[in-house]
C-alpha cells in the first residue's frame, strides 16, 4: 500500500519491494527509491521540526538542497546521524527517525517557541540570559539541551574508509546532459577523463523530467551515452560520488558511497582541467507560512513523479514567476493529480509551456500570488490574490483554494559552488536572475545550467564546447560533434524576479515568510538585522543564521540576499554572496581520514630487536614514532622495582640497551671538517681519527637544539649521532645549510639510522662480555681508550665498535648492520648469562645518565636553554664561528640569573620530586608566588640509595648548597638543596677504566 505511488513509470525496481521503518512505523518502498521518495509514496507528510521554532516540516526538495528531512538512519553501530532523506538510498530494513520533535514529531512541546516567536527573533540570546551573572551556567545547560539534530553513534564503527589518489586530464563534476556531453567530447581526444556524479544514476535532470532527446525520452540518450563512455578505457565513471572540495592547484576531493569493502572512499584528484556541470537549484518563493508541509519545489515534484513514480499530492497548485514550473503542472496532470491552478506572478505569459498548460485545461492565473496557506501539519488551502506588481503592496482580498500540494518555483540559481570554492568570481545575471560563473584563475570551465544555460539545447552545446576546450587545453585533439542530440525547440517567457511575496500586513508583522528553512530565518529577521546595524551580508548571515544549516543555503540563500538587498535599497550584486566553502555537501570524518586510523594512524617504527624485546616482556614507550622498550619487568614487578633492578645490575655487572633509535648520519667529503666546525660548538678539526667527541649544536638563536656523539672515522669521514626525536630534523637542518648557505662545500650527508642497529653494553663486565663473544681487536684502554671508535668483528660479524658511555660505566656501543642485530642481541644475551646480563629500557637509561648529570635534550632543555646554562662553556670554541654563537652574547644570554642546570636533593633524603615541580624560595609568599626554576628530571637512584633530581634554577650555578622548595601537591612543598648535577662517580673514573 503506497497510496501516492503511480501505477507505471519511474526508475524504481517494482520487482524488489523493500521494507523500512519511519518513527517506528513500518512502510514499503522499492529498490531505487530514496528514503524521501518512499516516504512521499506512503503519503508521509510530516518528517521533521525546524531548529529554532520547532515548526512542523515536510520534504521540500529532492536532492542536496533539502533542509527539512534530516534523519537518524539505522541503529547501533550502523547508525548515521543527520542524513537527508532525499539522499538516502532505501535499503531493506532501513530504520529512519526524525531528529527533532519532543515528545513526538506530531506534538512538539516546543510549539510554544513558535507562538512566542517574536521574542525569539534573530540574535535574541545575545540580549538576555545575562543576569544574575552566575546563572548563565544553568541557562546554557537548558539551551544546550535543544541542540543538534541527530545523535552521534555511540558504538565504534564496524565499517572502513579509504583514500584513493587519481590523476586525470579532465575531471567532469556533474553527470547531467552538460556533463555527459562534456565527458564524451573530451574523451574523444583520448584524454583521461573522470566523470563524477552524486546520484545513483548518471543523467542529472534528464531523469527527472519528461524531456525528449532525439525524439526519445531523455533517459534513453543518457543510457546510450553512459554505455558509450563506459566502453572507453580512458574514462572513469564514478556515480554516487560527490565532488565536495575544489582546492588549490586543481586538486579536488570526491566522496564516493561504496557498496564494496569500504563504506566510503575519498578520491583525491589532481586534474589538468576541470569541467563544472553541477546544474542549478530551484528557489522557493517567499510567502507567509511557505514552510508548511505540502509546499515543495516544483522541480522536486516533477522529480518524484518522473523518477520515482510518486505523486506527492492529489490537488496541486503551482506558484511560479518563471516557465519551468509549467512542466510540473503537466507532470502532475499526467500523474493523475488535479492541478487547481497555475499561479504566475507575472502579468502575462505565453510560449510553448503556457500553451501546453492551457491545452491541458489547467487554469492559469497571471498576475496572481499565493500569499499564505492554511493548515499546520499539512497545508489545506492556498490563499490566492491578484497582484499589480508593487512590492510594497498590502494584499487585501484573497481567495482560499483547497489543495494538498503547492509546487513553487522562484527561478533557478546556477550551482556555482565548486567554481566559487576554486576562487572564481560570480556575476549577477539580470535576465536569468542568477549568479553565473565569472573570471577564474584555475583551469576550470563551467557548463550547462551551472553556467547559466537553462535550455537543454544550450546545456548540451555548452557541455560539448567545454569538452572541446578542456581537451584542447591539455594539448589534445578532440573530435567535434557534427550534430548535437536533437531537442525540440521551446519558447519561454522570461522570469520576473519575485523575492518576497507581499502579504496582508507588512513584512514585520505578517506570518513568517521563510528564507532559511532549517534555521527558521525569515524575512522579518533580515529586516531586523539591518535595522540593528548588521548590514554586511556576512553579518546578516551570522546574526540570523541564514545559510548556516546543513544545506549551507543551497535552498534559501539567494532569496535571503535579495531580501537583504531590498531592505538596504541596494542592487543584489552589490550585496554579494557569502563565501562558498568546502564541503559541497557534508562529508563524513571517516572518509576524510581514510584508512589511516587505529593502528595505521601513525607508523610505529620498530627496531630490529623489537620482537625480541616483546618476547622478553618489555613495556614500550612512544618516542617520536618509535616504540622503545621502557622497562623489562619480571613477572609481577612494578616499574620502580624493575628500573631499580636494571640500574643496579648494570652498575654491578652488565646491562644491555637497544639504542638503535638514535639518529645516525654519515658525513664524507673534503670539506667535512669545515662544515662540521660551523655546525658544532666544539673544535672538530682537533679530533684525531678513531676518536669520538660529545657534540652539541645550537639553533641560530643560541639555544641547544640537539646533541650526540661525533666520531672521526677518517680524515674526511665522520659519523654523527642525534637524539631519537631530532634525527630527521637535524639531517634536514644540516642539508639546509649545506645546500642553501654553503653549496661550495664538498660534503655528502647520508642517513644510516636504519642501516645500523645500536646495542649498548654497559657495566664493569661489559669488556669481558665483548671479549667472550669473540672480538678481533684489543679492548684495553690503552689500545682502545674511552671515546674512541674501531672497526671490528664481533662473533665474526663486522661492526663499528664505540667505547663511549651514557651510563658512566665502562661501556661499549655496537653499531651493526640491522640484518644481523637481532642475532647479535641474542648472542650477547646468551653469552651474558654468566654475568647475569640485564636488558634495560629507556627509564633505567634515564636514571643512569641522570646519576651522572647527563642531560636529555627536550627533557632537561626546552628551547630556552643555552650551553652556558648547562655549564658547557668548555665546549664553545673561541677560535671559530658556529651557528648560534652570536646569540650567546645578546644581553639576555649574558644575564647571570638565567635558569641554569643544577642537581637537587630532597632534604629528607627520601622524597622523589615530581618531574615538572616548580621551585620557589618562599612557599608562604602571596600568590603569584615567584618561581625560580623547575625540576626537569627526577628519579629514585637505587645505586645511591636516595632520590636525585636535575633542575633548571635561576642563577643556579652560583647557588650550590642553597635551599629551595619544590612544589608537590596543591599546597604542599618539599624542601630541597641545590647541588652539583653529578651524583655518581663524581670524578668520572669508572667509564675510563
Amino acid at each position, binding site marked *: 500500500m503506497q497510496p501516492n505511488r503511480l501505477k507505471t513509470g519511474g526508475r524504481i525496481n517494482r520487482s524488489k519491494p523493500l521494507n523500512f521503518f519511519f518513527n517506528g512505523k513500518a512502510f514499503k518502498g522499492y529498490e531505487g527509491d530514496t528514503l524521501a521518495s518512499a516516504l512521499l509514496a506512503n503519503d508521509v507528510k510530516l518528517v521533521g521540526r525546524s*531548529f529554532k521554532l520547532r515548526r512542523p516540516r515536510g520534504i521540500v526538495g529532492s536532492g542536496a538542497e533539502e533542509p527539512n528531512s534530516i534523519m537518524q538512519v539505522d541503529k547501533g553501530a550502523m547508525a548515521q*546521524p*543527520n542524513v537527508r532523506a532525499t539522499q538516502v538510498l532505501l535499503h531493506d530494513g532501513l530504520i529512519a527517525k526524525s531528529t527533532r520533535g519532543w515528545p513526538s514529531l506530531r506534538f512538539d512541546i516546543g510549539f510554544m517557541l513558535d507562538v*512566542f516567536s*517574536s*521574542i525569539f527573533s534573530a540574535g*535574541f*540570546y*545575545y*540580549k*538576555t540570559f*545575562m*543576569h544574575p551573572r552566575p546563572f548563565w551556567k544553568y541557562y546554557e545547560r537548558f539551551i544546550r*539541551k535543544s*541542540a543538534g*539534530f541527530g545523535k*552521534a553513534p*555511540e558504538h*565504534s*564503527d564496524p565499517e572502513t574508509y579509504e583514500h584513493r589518489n587519481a590523476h586525470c586530464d579532465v575531471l567532469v563534476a556533474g553527470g547531467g546532459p552538460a556533463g555527459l556531453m562534456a565527458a564524451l567530447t573530451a574523451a574523444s581526444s583520448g584524454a583521461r577523463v573522470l566523470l563524477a556524479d552524486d546520484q545513483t544514476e548518471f543523467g542529472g535532470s534528464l531523469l527527472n523530467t519528461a524531456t525528449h532527446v532525439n525524439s526519445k525520452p531523455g533517459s534513453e540518450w543518457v543510457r546510450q551515452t553512459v554505455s558509450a563512455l563506459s566502453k572507453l578505457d580512458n574514462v572513469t565513471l564514478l556515480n554516487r560520488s560527490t565532488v565536495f*572540495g575544489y582546492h588549490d592547484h586543481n*586538486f579536488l*576531493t570526491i566522496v564516493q558511497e561504496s557498496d564494496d569493502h569500504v563504506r566510503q572512499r575519498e578520491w583525491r584528484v589532481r586534474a589538468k582541467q576541470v569541467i563544472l556541470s553541477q546544474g542549478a537549484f530551484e528557489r522557493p518563493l517567499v510567502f507567509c507560512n511557505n514552510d508548511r508541509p505540502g509546499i515543495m519545489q516544483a522541480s522536486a515534484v516533477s522529480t518524484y513523479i518522473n523518477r520515482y513514480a510518486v505523486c506527492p499530492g492529489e490537488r496541486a497548485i503551482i506558484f511560479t514567476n518563471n516557465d519551468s514550473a509549467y512542466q510540473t503542472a503537466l507532470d502532475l496532470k499526467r500523474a493523475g493529480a488535479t492541478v487547481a491552478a497555475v499561479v504566475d506572478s507575472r502579468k502575462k505569459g505565453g510560449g510553448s509551456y503556457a500553451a501546453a498548460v492551457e491545452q491541458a485545461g489547467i487554469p492559469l492565473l497571471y498576475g496572481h500570488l499565493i500569499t499564505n496557506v492554511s493548515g499546520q501539519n499539512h497545508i489545506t488551502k492556498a490563499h490566492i490574490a491578484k497582484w499589480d506588481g508593487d512590492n510594497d503592496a498590502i494584499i487585501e482580498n484573497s481567495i482560499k483554494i483547497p489543495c494538498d500540494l503547492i509546487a513553487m518555483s522562484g527561478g533557478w540559481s546556477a550551482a556555482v559552488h565548486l567554481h566559487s570554492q576554486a576562487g572564481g568570481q560570480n556575476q549577477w545575471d539580470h535576465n536569468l536572475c542568477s549568479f553565473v560563473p565569472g573570471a577564474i584563475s584555475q583551469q576550470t570551465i563551467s557548463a550547462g545550467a551551472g553556467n547559466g544555460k537553462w535550455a537543454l539545447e544550450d546545456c548540451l552545446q555548452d557541455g560539448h564546447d567545454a569538452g572541446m576546450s578542456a581537451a584542447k587545453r591539455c594539448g589534445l585533439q578532440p573530435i567535434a560533434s557534427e550534430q548535437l542530440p536533437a531537442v525540440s525547440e521551446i519558447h519561454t517567457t522570461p522570469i520576473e524576479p519575485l523575492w518576497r511575496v507581499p502579504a496582508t500586513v507588512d513584512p514585520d508583522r505578517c506570518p513568517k515568510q521563510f528564507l532559511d528553512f532549517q534555521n527558521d530565518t525569515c524575512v*522579518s529577521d533580515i529586516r*531586523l538585522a539591518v535595522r*540593528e*546595524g*548588521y548590514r*554586511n551580508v556576512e*553579518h546578516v548571515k551570522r*546574526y540570523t543564521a541564514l545559510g548556516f544549516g*546543513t544545506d549551507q543555503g543551497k535552498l534559501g540563500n539567494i532569496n535571503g540576499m535579495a531580501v537583504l538587498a531590498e531592505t538596504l535599497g541596494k542592487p543584489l550584486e552589490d550585496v554579494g554572496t557569502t563565501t562558498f*566553502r568546502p*564541503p559541497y555537501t*557534508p562529508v*563524513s*570524518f*571517516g572518509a*576524510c*581520514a*581514510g584508512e589511516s*586510523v*587505529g593502528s595505521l*594512524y601513525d607508523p610505529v617504527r620498530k627496531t630490529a630487536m623489537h620482537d625480541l624485546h616483546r618476547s622478553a616482556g618489555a613495556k614500550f*614507550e612512544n618516542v617520536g614514532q618509535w616504540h622503545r622498550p621502557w622497562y623489562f619487568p619480571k613477572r609481577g614487578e612494578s616499574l620502580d622495582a624493575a628500573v631499580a633492578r636494571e640500574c643496579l645490575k648494570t652498575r654491578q655487572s652488565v646491562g644491555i640497551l637497544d639504542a638503535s633509535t638514535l639518529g645516525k648520519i654519515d658525513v664524507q667529503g673534503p670539506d667535512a671538517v669545515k662544515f662540521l666546525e660551523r655546525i658544532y660548538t666544539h673544535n672538530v678539526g682537533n679530533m684525531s681519527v678513531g676518536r669520538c667527541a660529545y657534540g652539541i649544536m645550537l639553533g641560530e*638563536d*643560541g639555544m641547544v637544539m640537539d646533541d650526540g656523539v661525533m666520531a672521526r672515522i677518517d680524515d674526511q669521514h665522520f659519523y654523527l649521532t642525534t637524539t631519537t626525536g631530532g634525527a630527521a630534523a637535524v639531517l634536514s637542518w644540516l642539508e639546509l645549510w649545506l645546500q642553501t648557505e654553503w653549496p661550495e662545500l664538498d660534503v655528502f650527508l647520508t642517513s644510516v639510522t636504519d642501516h645500523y642497529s645500536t646495542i649498548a653494553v654497559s657495566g664493569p663486565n661489559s669488556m669481558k662480555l665483548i671479549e667472550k663473544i669473540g672480538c678481533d681487536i684489543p679492548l684495553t684502554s690503552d689500545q682502545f681508550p674511552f671515546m674512541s671508535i674501531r672497526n671490528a668483528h664481533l662473533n665474526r660479524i663486522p661492526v663499528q665498535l664505540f667505547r663511549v658511555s651514557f651510563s658512566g660505566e665502562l661501556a661499549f656501543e655496537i653499531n651493526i648492520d640491522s640484518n644481523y642485530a637481532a642475532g647479535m642481541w641474542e648472542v650477547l644475551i646468551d653469552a651474558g648469562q654468566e654475568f647475569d646480563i640485564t636488558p634495560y629500557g629507556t627509564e633505567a637509561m634515564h636514571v643512569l645518565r641522570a646519576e651522572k648529570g647527563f642531560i636529555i635534550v627536550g627533557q632537561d632543555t*626546552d*628551547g*630556552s636553554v643555552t650551553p652556558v646554562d648547562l655549564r658547557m662553556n668548555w665546549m664553545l670554541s673561541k677560535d671559530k664561528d658556529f651557528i648560534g654563537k652570536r646569540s650567546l652574547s645578546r644581553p*639576555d644570554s649574558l644575564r647571570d640569573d638565567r635558569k641554569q642546570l643544577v642537581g637537587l636533593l630532597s632534604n629528607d633524603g627520601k622524597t622523589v620530586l*615530581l618531574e*615538572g*615541580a*616548580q621551585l620557589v624560595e618562599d612557599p608562604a609568599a602571596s*600568590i603569584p*608566588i615567584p*618561581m625560580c626554576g*623547575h625540576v626537569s628530571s627526577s628519579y629514585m637512584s637505587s645505586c645511591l640509595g636516595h632520590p636525585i633530581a636535575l633542575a633548571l634554577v635561576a642563577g643556579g650555578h652560583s647557588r650550590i648548597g642553597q635551599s629551595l622548595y619544590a*612544589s608537590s601537591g596543591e599546597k604542599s612543598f618539599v624542601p630541597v638543596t641545590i647541588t652539583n648535577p653529578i651524583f655518581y662517580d663524581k670524578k668520572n673514573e669508572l667509564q675510563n677504566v
Partner: protein
Amino acid sequence: MRYSALSLVKNAFTHNRNWGEAWRTPDPKKHYDALIVGGGGHGLATAYYLAKEHGMRNIAVLEKNWIGGGNTGRNTTIVRSNYLWTEASLLYEKSMQLWERLSQELNYNVMFSQRGVYNLGHTLQDMRDIERRVHANRLNGIDAKVVTAEEIKESIPHINTSPDARYPILGASLQPRAGVARHDAVAWGFARAADNLGVDIIEQCEVTAINCEGGHVTAVETSRGTIHAEKIGVVVAGNASVLSSMVDLRLPIESHPLQAYVSEPLRPIIDTVIMSNAVHGYISQSDKGELVIGAGIDAYTGYGQRGSFSIIEHTMQAIIELFPIFSRVRMLRLWGGIVDVSPDACPIISKTPIDGLYFNCGWGTGGFKATPGSGWVFAHTIAKDQPHSLNKPFNLQRFETGALIDEHGAAAVAH
C-alpha cells in the same frame, strides 16, 4: 537600549521594530585623537577600554572589511589562561577575569561558557610538561590540575583511553574555569559598547598608508580618505606585516593559514573542550550542537584564508584517534584564517620606534582568549604611551635582547 529579557518581551509587542542600531555607521571624521586599525575583537576591545578606562572619546576603529570578519570570526573560541611562563599566564589570566564579567559589562551576552579545557598528554614527556605547567599555574593563582586517564574517561565517556591506542592518553591538565565563547558576539558586543561611549566604528575602510613626520605618526591614508590622528594602534593580526611595511618597520611575524571546521549539529555529546598536541586536534561542541574542530597551521605562509586539505585529513585522523565513534559524523563547513605567528608563540604589544605608533600582533593561533585582556593592556599602552606591567615583557625589543618568552615547548598548540 539596554538588552534584557524584559526588553525582548517589550519589543516583541512592537514586532521588533524599535530596536536601535547596535553600532552606528558614521563617516570618518578628518581627525581623531587616536585611531585603532583593525576591527577584530582586539581592536574593538582596545577602543572600548580606551574610551571607558582612559576617557578617550574622539577615537575610531578602522576596519577594511566588516568587523569581526578576521580571525575573531573564524577561530575555535577556546578561552583558557593556563600558560607556562609567568609573563604569559598573568596576561591571559587578566583576560580570563575580564571574560568572567564581560557579558554584564558589555550588556551583550557573549555566551562565555566555562566548561573546562583538557590538554591531553600522550607521552611521558607530555606528562612532565603538563605537571610543570600545572604547578606553575597554581603558583600563579590559576586553577589547574593534573587528571588521570581514568578521570578523563569519567568526564568524557566517548573518548578513547585505551592503552592500545597508537598514542594512548596518559593524562591531562584541566583548567575548570576555561571554556569557550561566542566569537561573533564578542566583536559585536565590544562594538556596541564602544559605540555607546562615542567611538566611531568605520567599516569598509582600509588603511593603505601610515603617514609620519619627524618620527611621529600624523595620519593614515584609507580607502575612505586621509584621517589624522596623534596616536595609531595597529591590531590587524595576520596582516601585521602589511601594515608594518608601510612604515618600514620589520616584524618577526609570519602569516600562516590556520583552518578549522564544524560538523553538522549533533545532540550534546561533549560538554567540555579537549585539546591534544601529540595527535594535533582540538574539539568542543557549540551550543547549537556542531563539533568545532581546529586543525594545525599550514607550513607555508598565506593570506588566502584557506589552507591545504591534507592538513584537514590529518586532523580528521587525529579526531578519530581520540573519538573513534565520530567517523560517521560529517563535516559541514571548512574555513581558514590568517594567523600571525611570532618566534616565541607570544604576542607583541608594544610601542614602536615611531612615536605614537603602537603594534599589537603575534597572537598566532591563540589570541581569541586574550581579546579583552589584549584590548585592556593595549588601551593602557596607547593612552599612557607606556606599557602596563602586564604587557611590558611583550615588547619588540625582546627579539634584540633575546628575552623571548618561549611558549612553544609548553604548548605547541597555543589555541
